[in-house]
């Protein structure tokens, strides 16, 4: 039996390739695409990390918070008068105004979804002091509920693609073209992450979040309103997921599908764990690394191995750094 298997694996060699030529040829293309993909991961990962840092809870339903944002983007575009079909030629000011509006709508919708989720599914459990596994189960339950509600509302097919911005080469770097879309995604994501980082580390509310992450009881004694901080955490995480949904929809215009958040959610969570969950900069690093490695792996081994490469990376990193690359830090003492 083993002999048969080995001969078969040796013969059918085309199921996996090891194509160094393509890899080195497309290296810079993949780098740029990986960074764009990675910044979306990072934005979603930040939501996982924030909630984990404060509540020690895997918010399994965060992928649904994200996909609700994607629907928000779709309907904003639709209500603004854009229809599936050819990309309209917009003046730059008009384009930015429309995108900003969609971004705000998505952030609000996702943020409110996250807060509602916290209210309905997590707060009653927290009151009871339930074990952590229970939180995960309700999170899974909430994830099912949101998915199925979307399914009942819009059916199983993805919403048709609405494009506002046609990707156009702006400049080349080492022979790889960089499109305006990629620049927009990376720059806007980094900006948002910077704002989030500043918010957590520099503002009064952010200090509250860090205090609750470190020691909820002591934070309460020091006058921090724990419930409000938790709500704020969900709101910020959800809003970032909403922003990510806009970029995702610009990259994959037909992305609004009821199950569409699932794989991205797993990937983003992988990114969060990779960088060190509960660590804001870890989420950024993990997201970018995951985006890059996925794209490199895709060109090296073939497109069907993309997801496997991501998961193998996760297992390997955790073997050597059991708390992620940067380690957990939101909860650690930092003045």
């Amino acid at each position: 039996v083993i002999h048969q298997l080995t001969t078969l694996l040796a013969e059918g060699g085309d199921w996996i390739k090891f194509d160094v030529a393509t890899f080195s040829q497309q290296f810079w293309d993949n780098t740029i695409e990986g960074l764009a993909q990675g910044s979306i991961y990072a934005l979603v990962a930040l939501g996982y990390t924030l909630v984990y840092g404060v509540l020690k809870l895997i918010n399994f339903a965060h992928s649904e918070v994200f996909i609700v944002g994607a629907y928000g983007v779709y309907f904003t575009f639709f209500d603004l008068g854009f229809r599936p079909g050819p990309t309209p030629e917009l003046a730059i000011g008009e384009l930015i105004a429309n995108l900003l509006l969609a971004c705000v709508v998505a952030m609000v919708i996702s943020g409110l979804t996250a807060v509602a989720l916290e209210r309905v599914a997590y707060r009653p459990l927290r009151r009871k002091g339930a074990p952590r596994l229970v939180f995960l189960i309700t999170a899974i339950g909430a994830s099912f509920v949101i998915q199925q509600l979307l399914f009942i509302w819009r059916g199983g097919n993805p919403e048709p693609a609405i494009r506002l911005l046609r990707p156009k080469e702006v400049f080349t770097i080492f022979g790889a073209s960089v499109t305006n879309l990629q620049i927009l995604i990376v720059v806007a994501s980094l900006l948002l992450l910077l704002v989030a980082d500043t918010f957590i580390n520099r503002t009064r509310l952010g200090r509250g979040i860090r205090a609750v992450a470190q020691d909820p009881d002591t934070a309460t004694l020091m006058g921090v309103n724990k419930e409000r901080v938790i709500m704020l955490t969900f709101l910020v995480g959800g809003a970032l997921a909403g922003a990510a949904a806009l970029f995702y929809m610009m990259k994959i215009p037909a992305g609004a599908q009821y199950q569409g958040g699932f794989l991205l959610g797993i990937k983003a969570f992988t990114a969060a764990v990779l960088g060190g969950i509960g660590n804001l900069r870890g989420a950024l690093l993990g997201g970018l690394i995951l985006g890059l490695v996925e794209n490199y792996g895709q060109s090296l081994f073939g497109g069907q191995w993309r997801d496997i490469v991501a998961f193998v990376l996760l297992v390997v990193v955790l073997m050597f750094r059991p708390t992620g690359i940067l380690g957990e830090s939101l909860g650690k003492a930092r003045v």
Partner: protein
Amino acid sequence: MSTQETTLPAPAAGDPARRRPPTIQSLRDRWNNLTRFQQWAALIPVLVLIYALPILNPPLLTTEPGTNFPIALFNAARFALIAVGLNVVVGQAGLLDLGYVGFFGVGAYVAALLTSKDSVILHHVPFLAVLPIAMAVTMVTGVVLGTPTLRLRGDYLAIVTLAFGEMVRLLADNLPPLRGNSGFQAIGHPPGTQADGNPIFSQTNGTPWYWLMVTLVVVILVLVGNLERSRVGRAWVAIREDEDVAEMMGVATFRYKLWAFAIGAAIGGLSGALYAGQIGFVNNQKFDVVTSVLFLAAVVLGGSGNKVGVLVGAFVISYIPDRFVQIAEYKYLIFGLALIILMIFRPQGLLGARQRLLARGREAYQRLIGRPEQVSSESALAAEPAKGAGA
């Protein structure tokens, strides 16, 4: 967490009528005070009833005409086996496994590769011999996956197992010998033919499969029950309750976690192989993470750590969509809502875990201070504080 006031139906069906309204706790004490022999004597009629179900086809319980009743029962029994296996990992040892479907898939593919005519392995193996092979292969898979990952803490372990489950599915997509979407036809079945020459274990007749499955569930339950009462089981409970303390007390935590993982994996592989045999067809569509989550839901719904509980949970998860086919479309919505509501109002599941270790300790203590032996574990249950609250 006291269960004294609860009015849920009794888990042990073999108990005689009582004067006071029975509670789970009193029934449990009563049950535990019976000798092993008496317990079996009470269980045998129940078992006979369970075996007779597909023939009796009771009017209210039946899933027909929507779903073939014996096949619905087989699927319930399959879920029961899965839940018992996953319960070893999640309920006993407290390891959160979100990728259990991976082991289930490995078992199914082992059966397919070794018996199907589509398989690249031309040397076919009899189906009954496949079952131990599938268990062995999944056990090895469990050890291979567990060795690097079981050093991780709970949540990291959850995501790694989730990734593993996805990897099995993606490998089934991508590896040519596993045939992706086209899958394997005509997977083997146990030997034996009826008078008319058709095989006893056919795909359309669920009854023999159901009997086989129930038998295996009983055997596995006895084996797992023995393990639970052994040093291994005590080590699992210690790890579940507090891993650091267990480690300090000299429990080889890693080794016992690996044991739990491997045993759980083997049971998952067994159920996967049986599933492949009954359906007669395996492809890459049946091993997604949602299925994994359903498995976990069965365990948690019934009460993780409680064997009777997980059986009930498995039955509910598998039976409800078959029985009420008109709501099958909303299956996941209802599951989702049920999970949230149940967890909010009864976080320990329908039937909570017994804190046997604590109960035993109290018993020993009482014996030590010379008070009469008292098997009740009420106070032990109440004394157990909820661990690791969210914030």
